[in-house]
């Protein structure tokens, strides 16, 4: 039991580190086990059928290739990784991925919550790597990349058939090093190439201010492990000022830790559940709010700003706030990333990240592939003007008094 605990603790640590590394990418990593309702990691695998699989044809092919192939044949380890990647790509789920030990250790190294890359949020859609958002003032924006651009190659390597994680790891790298992207943009006849120098990307997790009319404005950029604490600090400062309304800005927030999502939602919602998670066997887990929320008072109206780059944990929080009648959603339809990946470390240090569940809002609405439609749709107009925010303020000021 002791060993098991240690193993669990190690695993958890790794998980937390891994998850924080993912900032800047659309994620739905789960942290386990959460205080309440977290899924148990099955420790003793039940008798699986994998062992009964007939591998004879695989070995036939393996041996023939080894013996006869004219070119350079990769090492047995590399070939095994490719076999696993082959199986995974046949699943058609870009979020289930395999990282070889090198990639996996790279993914674990980053513990600071920041990372070195180009500062763009990407997602895999229909097998294509799409830029969902370019972060303000970061290298990707300076190089002229726009949301909607499709990345075809990274350093001349086609990313077709790669998992999202693999593609992201190719784009990232030590700061100061160049990465060449081949990009397709709708309307242009041919793809273009752009070389970007990687930088350390540090985005403040949370910022807040009091707007005119005594409206509290909170922008949350990612759900990392410090997000709940930052939010509580902000609310402790804002709430005593008796705001007339609260705007929670989740635009461009790609998600992060599930536990952070539950804690963030709990600051505003005190009713259960925050979200529903369904596993493949039909098993269902309800996540309860953490007691002690600072802004649950329903007499203070709330608007959640969302857009097409609000994903995963952002969608959980937005869904909980709307479904419990705590506030309305404004802006544009969210991304629709409601599947949960669990990382498994394999014997040789490589890592398998498996989609194990789907998320649903408290009312049972599926998040995955559907996204959340705002109650009030506001398109972001011309640059330099935040119409969505203006409309949110306008709406809150129009209520009662």
């Amino acid at each position: 039991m002791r060993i098991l605990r240690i193993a669990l603790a190690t695993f958890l640590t790794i998980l937390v580190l891994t998850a924080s590394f993912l900032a800047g990418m659309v994620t739905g990593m789960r942290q386990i086990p959460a205080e309440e309702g977290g899924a148990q990691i099955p420790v003793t695998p039940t008798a699986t059928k994998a062992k009964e699989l007939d591998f004879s044809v695989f070995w036939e092919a393996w041996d023939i290739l080894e013996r006869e192939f004219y070119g350079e044949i990769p090492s047995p380890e590399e070939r095994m990784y490719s076999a696993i990647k082959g199986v995974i790509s046949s699943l058609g789920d870009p979020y289930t991925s395999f990282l070889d030990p090198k990639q996996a250790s790279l993914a674990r190294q980053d513990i600071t919550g920041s990372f070195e890359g180009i500062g763009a949020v990407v997602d895999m859609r229909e097998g294509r790597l799409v830029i969902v958002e370019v972060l303000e003032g970061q290298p990707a924006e300076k190089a002229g990349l726009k949301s909607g651009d499709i990345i075809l190659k990274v350093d001349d390597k086609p990313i077709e058939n790669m998992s999202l994680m693999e593609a992201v790891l190719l784009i990232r790298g030590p700061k100061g090093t160049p990465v060449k992207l081949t990009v397709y943009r709708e309307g242009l006849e041919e793809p273009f190439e752009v070389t970007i120098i990687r930088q350390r990307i540090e985005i403040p997790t949370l910022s807040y201010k009091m707007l005119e009319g005594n409206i509290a404005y909170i922008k949350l950029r990612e759900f990392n492990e410090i997000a709940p604490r930052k939010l509580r600090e902000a609310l402790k400062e804002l709430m005593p000022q008796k705001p007339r309304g609260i705007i929670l800005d989740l635009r461009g927030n790609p998600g992060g830790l599930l536990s952070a999502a539950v804690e963030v939602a709990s600051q505003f919602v005190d009713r259960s559940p925050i979200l529903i998670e369904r596993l493949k066997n039909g098993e269902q887990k309800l996540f309860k709010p953490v007691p002690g929320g600072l802004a649950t008072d329903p007499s203070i109206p709330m608007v959640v700003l969302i857009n097409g780059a609000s994903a995963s944990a952002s969608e959980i929080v937005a869904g909980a706030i709307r479904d419990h009648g705590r506030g309305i959603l404004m802006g544009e339809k969210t991304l629709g990333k409601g599947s949960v990946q669990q990382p498994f470390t394999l014997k040789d240090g490589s890592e398998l990240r498996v989609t194990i569940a789907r998320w649903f809002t408290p009312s049972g609405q599926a998040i995955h592939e559907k996204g959340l439609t705002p109650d009030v749709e506001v398109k972001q107009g011309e640059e330099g003007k935040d119409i969505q925010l203006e409309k949110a303020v306008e709406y809150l000021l129009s209520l009662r008094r």
Partner: protein
Amino acid sequence: MRKTFFFVLAIILIIASYGAGFATHELISRKNKSQLNLLLEALEILKRDYYKPLPDDRQIIYAAIKGVISQLGDPYTTFLEPQTRTLEKDQLKGEYGGIGAWIRKTEDGRFILTPMEGSPAMKAGIKDGDELIEVNETPVTSFMSLDQVLIMVRGPVGTYVNIVVRRGEERLNFRIRRERIEIPTVEWRLIEQGMGYIKITSFTERTPRELEQALRKLQGQGTTSLVLDLRGNPGGLIDSALKVGGFFLKEGVMLHERYKNSLKSYNVIKAPLWVDWPMVVLVDSGTASAAEILAGALQESGRAKLIGEKTYGKGSVQWVYDLSDGSSLHITVAQWFTPGYRKVEGNGLEPDIKVQCSAPEGDACVEEALDILKKGGAE
């Protein structure tokens, strides 16, 4: 006494070889087991926890094989699933047992028949546009691939297949005897007096036989010079190309193959008929592989000039390994070179006379070919 001795010896030998085989098998499976570990580990996790149902076990194994192959970075090393492999075998053989109907799959997933002229399907009364809805009591559904349906309809010559088609409102039942259906690879005609034309569309097992017939017919019609058209010919079986070479070349090397550790040279295979007519060969960017072997050998031996466009440049050799479950691996095992050691891979063959063949009107290449043959005749 002697008999008993040999009997005992035979038994011992059988047991020994069985034992040896068993031991080898054990050895192999032990080796495999340790390598298999990681794939097995990953599969166990996926089977247990992946949110959606996994593909069936066979497909998982195939996906693993395809994964290994995709890493090699060689587009010609491929894995074919059993059904695709069966169809490919038919294709390379140049014939199969069937009813003689084209089957196409519509966008909404229906399978439509078009009978070939004079085929069993046509004789049985299948009409163009009939929709195939059942084969041997198995319903045909939109989930099936075209390959799957083709395999169901095909079978050994002389056996019967029951099919049900929908024609308008009607459901019609047919019982059709499968015959040998040939996939022709040689077309021929006399262009003008003394000028023969032969087009080879690919190199299958049947090609040399078809070519022999075509040459004999042309011979009978007084052909004295020949245009051999290899445009758009993607290749096929190398042996077939070596046999075809024998109709035009008496002897000599046709190609060299460089394997990982060895070099092999292949000579022309003697044909039942040899023609010494002046000839030219038409090539274009679709002339590839075995067709490039033939063109290269004819060019370098001085037997024929190449007319047209630069060829494709596929200079690697694949061997086909049939695996135990009917699937197969095509593996790049060698590079080949022309008799004069020209490297074809990535380079292609330069024609002696460059002519743009893809003009919309007429056929500039055939015109040029005739010109050259006539000039040659005048000299």
